């Protein structure tokens, strides 16, 4: 029996830079290979807030930095700003 630990990754995009704000977007990647989440496969987010993911055992390992816009680009919109990466370590492999 393998004792290898695999990583599951959850990415949440939040309404503001606060971890307890509302989830507006999400993505999942599964290092066990047991599931293959893909684009457009669910309309309901897995959690309502970032903190709700912590409460469910996900460990936060990265949050987006707050980077001011370059002068002249203050009104432009582009990528989602408030990106938070979470992990779970599960047996697998």
């Amino acid at each position: 029996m393998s004792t290898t630990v695999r990583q599951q990754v959850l990415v949440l995009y939040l309404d503001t830079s606060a971890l307890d704000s509302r989830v507006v977007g999400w993505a999942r990647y599964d290092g066990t290979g047991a599931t293959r989440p893909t684009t457009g496969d669910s309309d309901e987010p897995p959690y309502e807030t970032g903190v709700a993911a912590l409460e469910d055992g996900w460990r936060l390992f990265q949050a987006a930095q707050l980077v001011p816009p370059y002068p002249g680009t203050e009104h432009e919109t582009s990528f989602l700003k408030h990106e938070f990466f979470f992990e779970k370590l599960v047996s697998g492999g």
Partner: protein
Amino acid sequence: MSTTRQLLNSTQVARFVAHGFLRLDGIVPPEMNEEALAVFTAGLPSVPYGTPVPKAFPEGSFARRLVELPAVAGALESLVGPDPTVDHHYVHIREPREGSAQPLHGDAVIDLRPDAFDVQLMYYPQEVTAEMGGTLIVPGSHLRRTNESDTGRYQNLRGQTRLTCPAGTVVLLHHGIWHGGRRNDSDIVRHMYKIRFNPTVPQVRLWDTADLDAPAVREELGRGFPWYEQATGRLEILNRIRLWRALSGDPAFDIEYWATRIANRPAARRSQA
């Protein structure tokens, strides 16, 4: 062909400016839908970039009849004007039981035009069920400055639309909208025919403007979407105001005084006096 032009009204165009797309459900007649799959199987002649519609699609061809359907012709004229050129066209096929979806993307390389846009026509000759996947579209994403598949990390966004539709549906999209072909979990091959149109005239008041001052126009342009972040959502409306000023030819149009307020530069006026 109908002699009555079915132009969009201002509220519909404002809705396009806010959402970035317009759905025309089931407007292609069944006999054309039945004809379509054979036409696609036979293959479509390639069209050089920038070819006028009559030259790209000869009289009587399937594509010509499609774009001359009154509802399609009226919507296209309202958005890109008369005599657009065809950028390219292509039949997209999603095979049964595909394991993955297309990543979320925009079709153009980053496009900075503030006063022009291309329109992409997507035609679905078959009924598209949820199991067949359909096209994922993110309403209100078209004014964001992102390049092609750089948005591929985003799997799902609140308020995304997962297209299911009756046969004969046409969707017209702003070139910048985030979208992707969803995974096909059915046993049916899914077809989507896409044509991209470039305007050849200024895109100013090309639609039926009788309702230009209707309250519904402002309501559409001020619309929020559930995936917008709090701060960025306001910028989206500001960017729509700028686009609507260009399309309506009204440089004073505003919502909540936002664009007017930040253009107020008394010191600059005094220095020019």
